[in-house]
Structure formats: structure tokens, C-alpha cells
């Protein structure tokens, strides 16, 4: 390398270092603010929770009725257990719409046999356009009278959800993953914000990781951490994302994501925005962003809330390959949604969304991994060129790790002071340890997956990727 090139590279590296330091400071200040806002929001939630007897929702005719939509594709192994658990949920008036999205296995046959289903002449009026519905079935048995099974041509998860919305009879719709487990009172808790405030249009509930927990007849009866490292890392990540992220965004009315695994929406608004979008892998986030846009553009007073208490349990990937696919899909979904709604960035119409939430998701969530990867490359190059001051590098590395750990531990503290669902001391200590060691290896792998998703996105990859699940431990 000649002298000029070397000098240019050195200048670039030094400039990049300066930029990274500024970015790092801004990001950490932001995270710190979010942690503080989330803390306040959780304390407020817990104080309100003291006066909330959810049994009254169960017993009241004033409670809004809910249609639960469970889309399913090749779920013959789990559909009976998951549907039975949905039918047992505590809620005064709810219907369960199981949408068989053209499964290639015997999902429909298994459902028909177990629930004694019979085809009905129920009229199907597609308020949102969907693939054709082949048949609507109800049970002959009284105990399953709230179950409706819809058989349709394969069209993907978003299409199945839209069919569920078209078939639903009630004013609130709850979208869940057919392979998730809801706690018995989850619907009562997630419906509460709709009772508190008539402006609420959507509510997201916390999703927790069930790996390691003991599950009996569709219920989590013993909460504990998995013995495997990968799910435990994800537990810490979920705490950070939900308790110190979404909780804070909910308080600011800037929540852009409600997990597809568990969310409750006002049907009239969902229909007004045209239902779920078919050609995106981030249909859950895209719908919420569209609802925000719809309300902001029409000056409709609204709120999108996050409730940290209603629990939906899901199985986290236990292999790097499957986790990689999941993270790749999430990041493609984020990128797609931000591109579709790029007009919102710094646009005054969208208030907190345009000025805060959208820039955060763009510059920190979406582009953060790219900057981090460039940072690693810059460090290696810098060492090779001998332009890095080792002491300063070590100091920066230490600072980065300390702050990273601080936010993880902060999220664990939020969990422990609020819901403390992990009763064992050993699990708490493990969570703290995982909050430290995730910075050495795990974090870098997730950065790589997310960076790779840019490549896949611009190559036009739209697939979900195969999500192999090992099944819940019984």
C-alpha cells in the first residue's frame, strides 16, 4: 500500500471512529432514556394493577367481545392442543377462528375429527380481499360452540389472518400464532386498555420464551430458564425488547411493533386500513404502522398500548440456523416496513412517530448492525495498519460492554421488580450472567444475521424460511 492510500485509510478510520463514538453516545443516551421511561410506565402499570380485579371483566356484559384468529399451516401435530387451550381462555364472549391456510398435511381432517366439525352455509363476505375460502365449519358439540374452522386456499399468514378478520363477528380481533400458548387471563388483561380508554386501537402483549418451562395441557405450570444457552440469551433479549423497549414506546404512543404472536386490535380500524399486507414478511409491524398513519393523517385521537403483563409463551429457536433465519426475516420485515412508510420520517403529521420512533427504528434498529459490522472491520484494519491506540480501543471496548450489560441488567431488574416470573434464584443469577456474556459472540452473530438480511432483501427474498420447532416440553 502506498503512502497516500495509507494516509487516506487512516483519515477514514479516524473519521469513522469519531462518528462511531458520537453514534454510541447518542444511542446509549436514548437507551437510557427509554429505560427510565419504561421504568416509570411499569411502576404506573403495577400501581393500577393493584386495583384491578380482572374477574369483573369475565363476569360483565359490558366487556367487548373478541374474535381470536389463529392461522395455521401444516399444524396437525399441535393444532388440537393449541385450539383447546384457546377455547379455555378466560373471557366472557370470545370466538376462536382457526384458519387452515391450505395445509398440505391433515390439519383439517385432524380438527374435523377431534372437534366433531360440520360444514355450515355461513356466508363469507370478504371485506378485505383474500384467497378463496373452501369451507366454514362449526362443531356439533356444545362445548366447542365458540369454535369456527375456516378452510382456505394457501395464501400465507397475512392472507389467513385477513380471512379470519372477514369471518369475525366481534369488534376486537386478537391475532395469535397457532403454536403459541396464552395464559388463561391473557385476554382479560390485554382487553383492559380498551375499557380504560376508548381511543385505544391496538394493544400488544408481552411474549415470553417457554423453552425450559414445564407445560401441562396447554398451560405453563413451572417457569424456568432453559438449560441451553441459546434460548437463555433470547430471554434476556426479549426482556430488553419488551420491558425496556416496547413498554417505553407504548408510554410515548410510538409503539410500531405488536408481535404477530399476540396482539389485540380494533376491527373497524383494521378494516379501514385494509387488513394485513400480503407481500411482506413483517406483516405484524406493517399493520401497526399503517394504523398509526391512518389515525395521524385523519387526525383521529388514538393510542397503541403495550401491556407487560398478559403473557403469551412461545418456543424460541434452539439452533443457530433456525434463529438466524428468524432474525433475518425480522430484519427484512423491518426494512420493508420502513421503506414502505419512508414518508413518515421527520414528517410533522406523524408527531412522535415521525420525529422519534421512525428515526429510532431506522438509525438504530435497522442501520445499527451495519455500523457495528463496519466498526469491527475498521478495528481489524486499524490494527493491521497500526493506527489504533490499543489503550483507547480497550477503553472504548470496555465502555461498550459495560453499557451493553447495564441495559441488559436494567431489563432484568425491570422484570424482577415487576412480574418476577422466574422464581428461582439460580435463574436470576443465570439471567444476569447471560446479560454479560451475550456481548462476547452472541451479539456479533446476531449482527451478522441482520446485516445479511439486507443482501437477501435486495435480492428479492420474500420467504419466511423453515422454522423447525422441537415442541414444548411436557
Amino acid at each position, binding site marked *: 500500500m502506498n503512502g497516500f492510500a495509507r494516509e487516506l485509510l487512516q483519515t477514514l478510520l479516524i473519521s469513522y471512529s469519531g462518528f462511531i463514538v458520537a453514534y454510541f453516545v447518542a444511542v446509549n443516551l436514548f437507551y437510557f432514556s427509554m429505560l427510565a421511561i419504561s421504568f416509570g410506565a411499569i411502576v404506573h402499570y403495577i400501581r393500577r394493577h393493584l386495583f384491578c380485579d380482572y374477574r369483573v371483566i369475565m363476569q360483565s*356484559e359490558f366487556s367487548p367481545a373478541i374474535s381470536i384468529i389463529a392461522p395455521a399451516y401444516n399444524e396437525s401435530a399441535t393444532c388440537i392442543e393449541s385450539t383447546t387451550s384457546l377455547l379455555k381462555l378466560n373471557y366472557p364472549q370470545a370466538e376462536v377462528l382457526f384458519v387452515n391456510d391450505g395445509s398440505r398435511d391433515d390439519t383439517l381432517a385432524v380438527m374435523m375429527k377431534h372437534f366433531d366439525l360440520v360444514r355450515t*352455509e355461513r356466508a363469507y363476505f370478504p371485506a378485505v380481499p383474500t384467497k378463496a375460502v373452501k369451507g366454514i365449519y362449526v362443531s356439533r358439540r356444545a362445548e366447542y360452540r365458540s369454535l369456527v374452522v375456516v378452510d382456505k386456499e394457501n395464501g400465507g399468514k397475512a392472507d389467513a389472518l385477513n380471512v379470519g378478520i372477514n369471518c369475525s363477528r366481534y369488534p376486537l380481533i386478537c391475532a395469535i400464532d397457532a403454536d403459541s400458548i396464552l395464559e388463561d387471563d391473557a385476554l382479560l388483561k390485554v382487553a383492559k386498555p380498551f375499557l380504560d380508554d376508548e381511543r385505544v386501537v391496538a394493544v400488544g402483549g408481552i411474549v415470553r420464551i417457554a423453552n425450559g418451562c414445564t407445560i401441562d395441557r396447554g398451560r405453563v405450570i413451572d417457569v424456568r430458564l432453559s438449560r441451553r444457552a441459546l434460548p437463555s440469551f433470547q430471554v434476556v433479549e426479549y426482556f430488553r425488547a419488551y420491558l425496556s423497549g416496547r413498554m417505553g414506546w407504548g408510554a410515548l404512543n410510538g409503539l410500531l411493533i405488536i408481535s404477530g404472536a399476540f396482539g389485540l386490535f380494533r376491527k373497524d380500524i383494521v378494516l379501514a386500513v385494509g387488513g394485513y399486507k400480503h407481500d411482506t414478511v413483517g406483516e405484524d409491524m406493517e399493520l401497526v404502522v399503517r394504523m398509526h398513519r391512518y389515525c395521524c393523517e385523519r387526525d383521529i385521537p388514538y393510542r397503541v398500548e403495550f401491556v407487560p403483563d398478559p403473557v403469551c409463551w412461545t418456543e424460541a429457536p434452539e439452533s443457530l440456523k433456525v434463529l438466524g433465519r428468524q432474525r433475518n426475516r425480522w430484519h427484512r420485515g423491518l426494512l420493508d416496513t420502513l421503506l414502505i412508510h419512508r414518508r413518515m420520517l421527520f414528517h410533522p403529521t406523524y408527531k412522535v412517530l415521525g420525529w422519534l420512533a421512525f428515526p429510532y427504528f431506522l438509525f438504530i434498529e435497522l442501520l445499527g448492525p451495519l455500523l457495528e459490522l463496519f466498526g469491527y472491520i475498521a478495528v481489524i484494519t486499524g490494527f493491521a495498519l497500526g493506527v489504533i491506540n490499543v489503550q483507547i480501543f480497550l477503553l472504548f471496548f470496555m465502555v461498550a460492554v459495560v453499557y451493553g450489560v*447495564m441495559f441488559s441488567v436494567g431489563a432484568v*431488574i425491570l422484570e424482577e421488580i415487576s412480574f418476577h416470573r422466574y422464581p428461582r434464584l439460580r435463574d436470576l*443469577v443465570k439471567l444476569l450472567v447471560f446479560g454479560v456474556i451475550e456481548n462476547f459472540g452472541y451479539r456479533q452473530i446476531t449482527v451478522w444475521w441482520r446485516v445479511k438480511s439486507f443482501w437477501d432483501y435486495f435480492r428479492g427474498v420474500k420467504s419466511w424460511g423453515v422454522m423447525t420447532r422441537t415442541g414444548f416440553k411436557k
Partner: protein
Amino acid sequence: MFFLFVLITTFLALFLLATGAIGLVVHKVRSGFMETRRYAYDITAREFLNVYLFSDIEPDPAEQPELYQERLLPLLAQLRTDLRLHSASRSNPRRRSLKRVALTLSSEVIGETRIRMTRLFDHFGFVDDLIPQLADSAWWVRANACRTAGLMRAEPALPLLERLLDDENEDVRIEAAQAMLDIAGVAGLAPVLMRLRELSLWMQVRLSRTVLEFRGDAVPHLVVGIRSEHPQVQGFCIDLLGMIGDVSAVPVLLEYISFEVPAVQRKSLIAFGRIGDERAVPVIQRFLGSEERELRLAAARAAANLASPAIAYHLHALLLKDDTEVRLAAAEALARSGETGVKSLLYASRVEDRSVRLIALQFLHDLGVVPSGEGGAA
């Protein structure tokens, strides 16, 4: 200088981190220990409380209340001795345990046991503790005090509770209203309704449970409440009158539906459907032809509950002309209207409009009637 600053803040963060982590572990261990201790205290308190609540005592409190109260005193003294509650300090863990256990049981006891429970709260000074909390500056303390006052049936708290119906915090207002109903019973309903300015859906959910437990006794008070100047309170009263289903509410509902307020009219129609009184049939018939879509829908739904063949003609018109949701409600009403309704659905199953046909066939199918065009006789 900059690096020194970074170093200091990092060490500060590290210190916070270590303190937080250690604090968390200590808290976990301590709370486990406290939980065990609290459990032990609660077991003891429950045991002695059962003795107090269920020991035989003469006379009947309704016949000789003063003598009855006098006879309770030795039992209360015994409870004090059993629980070693010689100190009245609020921090006494045994006293706190007694309060916790008694409050848990409080919502479940009735009759004479209820009187003993109320006396216990008074005797041990729990009601006196409560009064200053009702005026606390923190809303959650006030709300919790209201809730506790209701569970204790603390009559001395009533004037303060009434004042808290105007509190700035909604949770406080809800708990105050609920506590007033718990303490004063159905007699507290009209004052609560006339005092409230707004009712969120959550407040309606909360209060409705208690009001519906009063059943027919609540009707005169709800009729008073309907005169509130606040539309949400009016609507709430109408809803409850419908849910209670007492025909004595029909005249007042007929009066209110004549006012041109769509929200009140809609709720009145739903209430008529629930009550199922024939006097409402002409009104429902009139609203089936309303220009307001929501009123037509409410009328069709009410008609489904009334199942009167007299309005089949109007329902048939809705089935043929209206939007899907109203058509579904009209078809359901027709399906419940006997032979006239079935004839109407059979006719609709042969019309040109596909969605009308589909809806009619859906309800005919549910009734087990196969239209002649579908391979069987009607």
C-alpha cells in the same frame, strides 16, 4: 480530559451495574425469606380469625344489637391475646397479617359473620388508619384506601368517599363509587350515579357487577340515575335496566327513546330487546325504518330477541336492501320469528342479489330448512 470523563462515567456505570445486580440477588433472597415468614403469620392469623368469626354467640344481632356488640368484645380480646397484638403499631407484622387475612376473607362473608368482620376492623383500629389515607396526596394510596374502606364496610369513610367521586384520578373515582355501593348497598346507587360526571367502559364494567347483584331493587335508583345530565351515565343506566330485564323500566325507556338522542335511542332499543316486552314492538318497528344505520341495526337486534312475527315485513325490507351487518341481524330476527320469518327467508333465498341469498341460506341451513331449489322441499 475527555477520556477521564469517559473513564469516570464508565466506572460509575459499572458501579451501578454491580450494585443493581447484587441488590437484585439480595432482594430475591430477602423476598423469599419474607414470603415464608408472611405465610407463617397468615396461617396463624387465619386460624384465630376463624375462631373469632365462627364461635357461637347469643343473642341475634338484629334483635338485641347492643348486647350482641357487647358479647363480641371478649372474643375480640381473645383474638388480641392469641395473636399477641398488644402493640397497636402499624408496623407490627402480626397486625398487618391479621388485616391482610381479614380483608381477603371480607369479600366472601355475609350476614352475621359480616357484622363480626366489620366490628373487627373497627376494634383493631384499621378503619382509623384508613381515614387519613383517603386524603393522601398519592392517587394510588387514595384508591387503595377506598377499596379497603369498601371491603371493611367502613361507614365513617362515607362522607370522604362521596367527596372522592370528584377525584381527578379515575381509579380513585371508581374505587370510591364501588366502596360506596359496598358500604351503603343499593341506597348508595342513586347518589353515586347523580354525582358521577363521566363513566369509562372500565368503570361501567366495575360498577355493573355490583348493581346487577341488586337486581330489581336497583331499578328505581337507575330510573333516578337516568335523569343525570351526563349522557354516559344515562346510557349506563339504560344498559343496566335492559340487563336487569325488569318490565317496570319499560315506561321510562319509552319516554327516553322519544328524545332525539341517537346514543340514548340505540341503548334503549337494545334494552327493549333484552326486556322482551310487547309494548316495545311498535317502537322497534318504527326504528327498523330509521335513517340512522346504527339505529336500524339496534332495532333489528332487538327484534331478534323479541321474536315477534308482527315486524317480519319490516325485517324483510332490511334483509333485501341494507348493508351486510344489518342484513345479518334482520335475517337472524326473521329466523326467530316463526313461520312468517321462515317464509321471508325462503323468498330471500331466491332473489337475484347474491349476498341476500347467501345470508338467507345460512339461516335456513341453521334452522334445518332446505329451500326447494337446493334439492329438497321447504
